[in-house]
């Protein structure tokens, strides 16, 4: 798959989100896309997925089977998880039982009878992943897939990504939390100032320890609802921060 001189803006008079982007995605590659909020990561993912056409330039040789998991799965739909996944499996022409197997693997079997509207953010994220994995994707696009996931699924997802790549699929992951930093062979793209730079990553938000000295540290007090405490703590720990809890 190849992007040639791709530029994109949402309206004729709107600002350019991406300008003259040239990229090559080889089969079996895994790409981690980073960049600050609003840099254009989600727009790049939608261009790759074929959801929006480029304003200029061309996208060639996109795999025929594309899967997309959004950053926030839309739970405002009048279905149970099973009914929703059954519909999506029919649309994708997936094998019967594919949803059940994926649910078991991602620890979501207990969610199958729940209405989508009752799901927490992390649970909804799992359903978004399951629908994207119902058929083996030629191109898998994951927009911030780790947000809100429990520890077990955070561990399982890189394994699934690795399996898809090993089978020849291409995986592009917008990953603000750098969860794929240790995935061997993963490429990295940095989206900034309307361009995409292969081989670059977002600078770590954490200051590096001063040579020979004690790292400078600051304490930030974050007040959250008790129900959300586990999720927030997991996110912060996943980002490498030290957390202490008090109630």
């Amino acid at each position, binding site marked *: 798959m190849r992007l040639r001189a791709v530029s994109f803006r949402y309206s004729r008079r709107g600002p350019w989100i991406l300008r003259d982007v040239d990229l090559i995605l080889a089969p079996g590659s895994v790409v981690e896309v980073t960049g600050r909020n609003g840099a254009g990561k989600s727009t790049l993912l939608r261009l790759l997925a074929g*959801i929006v*056409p480029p304003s200029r330039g061309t996208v060639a040789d996109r795999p025929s089977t594309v899967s997309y*998991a959004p950053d926030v799965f839309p739970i405002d739909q009048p279905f149970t998880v099973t009914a929703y996944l059954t519909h999506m499996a*029919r*649309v994708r022409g997936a094998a019967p039982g594919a949803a059940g197997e994926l649910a078991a693997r991602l620890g979501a079997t207990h969610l199958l009878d729940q209405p989508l509207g009752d799901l927490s953010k992390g649970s909804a994220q799992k359903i978004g992943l399951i629908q994207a994995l119902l058929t083996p994707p030629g191109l898998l*696009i994951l927009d911030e897939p780790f947000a809100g996931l429990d520890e077990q699924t955070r561990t399982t997802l890189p394994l699934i990504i690795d399996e898809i790549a090993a089978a020849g699929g291409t995986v592009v992951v917008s990953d603000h939390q750098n969860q794929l930093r240790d995935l061997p062979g993963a490429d990295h793209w940095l989206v900034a100032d309307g361009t995409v730079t292969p081989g670059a990553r977002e600078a770590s938000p954490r200051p590096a320890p001063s040579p020979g000295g004690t790292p400078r540290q600051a304490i930030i007090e974050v007040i959250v609802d008790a129900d959300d405490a586990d999720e927030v703590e997991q996110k912060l720990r996943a980002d490498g921060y030290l957390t202490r809890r008090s109630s």
Partner: protein
Amino acid sequence: MTHLARFKLAAYARSHRLFQPVIALFAMLLIFYSTLVPPGKELSSYADSAGLLILVFAWAARGTLDTEPPTQRLISMTAAGRPGREIGAGLLAALTVNLGLAAIAVAMPLLHGFAATPAPGDLVRGIALHALGLSVGTALGALTSRPILGSPAAAMLALFGGYVAMLLVSLTPAGPFAVPIMPWMRAANAGALDASLPALAAAALFWSAAGITLYARLRRTRP
């Protein structure tokens, strides 16, 4: 595409949105047929029904197309293989809903509304006029749906305003070449529908196709 259309129809049926056009439909049918239509006037009554129910058809189409959350539309586009299939499935679902509403509008006066059973020819002409009405209504509803007009207030204004504008333009001498709502009502009332129906149908279907094409074109950059 049919599986995705069924998904959209299932979501629409399970949501409260279906009740709005159905209630409007029955309210309008109640008004149309509050007094029995005398024998021989059935076609004129069908022509009025087909023209006035465009508003209900547009409302139902807009509701069907707006049922999916915006992010689900993105998922559906990739699941279906390409964005065009998601757009096509949405239109197919909206047409299916409107076919159901049109069937009720045609069948109800046969049960209660007409003093006598209409001639088979008039029944066929009535069905044809409702088919024109639902195609125009589906196009108007699609052009006022959320991906095209994000503000619900602006969308409702465009839907009602668009319908009134179509009615007013069809009153002018250019009426037969615009969406010919008033011309088909007049022709049916004058007993001259057979002669003018091909031209009226061509104009109505042309504008419906133009509206649907514009909708599909706009959706390319408004997923």
